[in-house]
């Protein structure tokens, strides 16, 4: 059901969303595995980072927020996250630069980027030129869908 819902959320026409949205009623169930996965959430918008952390925690993950690339790297050194979820467009260090740094320092960490802007191709190209390719999610994204995509990565 979630599968159908998630695909529909991608490109359902507004006339159909009335049928499909009621599926939102599903609530996230906690991860059943023993070791809780650790997720580092980075966004210069504090509200976004904090709400996503809360959502991940409710879903059974261990989640920590950072609001810029430097502190993210610092926290990652201590936390050793399983996954990094980072906004792309941030001042000083953007998400791609952070991701490349994470790859170098913590190659085992999965990386997912997300952004509200389409014109990030140049930034992604920067990563591509260095041989990196990252999973990209659109903003805004429904929490359930976000969780699902993250689970796919882990």
């Amino acid at each position, binding site marked *: 059901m979630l599968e159908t819902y998630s695909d529909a959320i991608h490109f359902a*026409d507004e006339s159909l969303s009335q049928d499909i*949205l009621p599926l939102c009623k599903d609530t996230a169930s906690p991860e059943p595995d023993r070791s809780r996965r650790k997720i580092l959430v980075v966004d210069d918008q504090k509200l976004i980072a904090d*709400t996503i952390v809360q959502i991940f925690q409710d879903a059974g993950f261990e989640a920590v927020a950072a609001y810029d690339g430097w502190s993210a790297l610092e926290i990652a050194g201590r936390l050793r996250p399983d996954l990094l979820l980072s906004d792309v467009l941030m001042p000083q260090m953007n998400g791609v630069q952070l991701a490349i740094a994470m790859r170098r320092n913590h190659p085992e960490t999965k990386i997912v980027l997300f952004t509200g802007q389409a014109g990030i191709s140049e930034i992604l190209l920067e990563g591509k030129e260095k041989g990196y390719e990252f999973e990209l999610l659109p903003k*805004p994204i429904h929490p359930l869908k976000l969780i699902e995509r993250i689970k796919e990565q882990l």
Partner: protein
Amino acid sequence: MESTSPVQPKSAFGNNARSSPSASERPGTEPDAIDARFHLAAIVESSDDPIISKDLSDSITSWNNAATRVFGYEPEEIIGQSILRLIPPELRHEEDRNFETLQTGQRIEHFETARLRKNGERFPVSVTISPIKNAEGRIVGSSRIVRDISNRLKSDESQFRLAAIVDSADDAIVSKDLNGIVKTWNLAASRIFGYTAEEMVGQSILKLIPDNLNYEEDEILRKLRAGERIDHYETTRRRKNGELFDVSVTISPIRDESGRVIGASKIARDISQRKQFELLLIQSEKIAATGRMAAAVAHEINNPLESLINLIFLARQDSPEGSKAHKLLLTAEEELERVSHIARQTLGYYRETGTPAEVFLHDLIENVLTVYNSKIISNSISVAANFNDLQKITVSKGELLQVFSNVIANAIDAMNTGGTLDISTRNFVGPSGPGIQIVISDTGIGIQAEHLPRVFEPFFTTKGNMGTGLGLWVTRQLLESRGGQISIASNSSKKNSGTVVTIFVPFARPQPNMSAEQKNG
């Protein structure tokens, strides 16, 4: 030559007078006759036009000052010579004809012909010839007044040229007097306003001015009397058929020799077409701006939307199931999802991954059909698929998914009470080269003829509140940025309604410098 007066006129009246017996044989009348003669001589001398007389043998018998000036001969060299010396050879026969006319006692007036000056130069003249009769009334010769009309012809010529210029102009050129009465009306004016020259000359110019703009005429006349010009003044005028249209008018005063303003010349350019183009330009600018603005707005709101979605979700998780708060938050979540949907659509951003991949288009279509399966069943729609795209094509999966989703969703919406959804794909060679053609047709209610040209317009929808009006617009943007095309045909008549959407995607990706912005702003 004997003379009884100290004043000797330079030109002689010739032998005719002296050979006439009466004059010299009446000593009693001599002083009066002589006075009269000199009076006449003076008149002839003071004439601006050449006056020449000849006898019956065509010998010139008198030659005045003006004749000397115009022809170049002095009297002594021409008197006694044949008048034919002054006439171009091919015109000499005219003299005979003239003589016949004179025989009947008639004058010949303003006869236009040509003469020769002493230097051989030919020039146009207007000649008035009168017979000279003796006392018995017998014609003994003729006298002619020769007017050099070369200047008049020149000015006629330039007048004709000016008239031709005015008539060949594209703009209406109209002249009027200070009472607003039309004096001249050129061809373009007839074409533009619809009135012929006969219909307008002598009429008031107010005939062309819409009633609510009549005050303009007073204002114009006031300025003209002050000697001012009116340049490229944009206003509205009225054609013969009543149609109002936009013009650009330039009005200049017409002055007489003393510089007094006696009327006005008006050049009116029909700018209705230009205005139409301007409107279209503004419209397309608006649409382009809408695109740009939408992108900017969407980008600005995506972050707050993300926060909102998260906050409401968390709040809903926290509220007891079945509680009022829970229900309200659920509704809020749904509304928010709708807003997000619009934001995602207007952004034109839709990528799961950053790079395009090689896919079979029919796989993407199957994907979409699966998603809409429940709706297809509930609407009693039967699906016929004919997939003949035998080649993979490099596309952005997310973008093409959105394209097919928009089109198929429209088809499903058009068939509320059942119908057939026909989808076919095949290899095809389009104008930009080989690629894949997809045809999606339905037997739904169709799109009305007056709506059809507008379906790709942003914010145009036939779905009332349910539609954002952005689906097809975004679809076309996505396709065109990939170098593809989309076209829609539809029939909304009750019997045979349905819509056919044809999509083409070329194999070759467009060059990097051909951005979506360049194509559609």
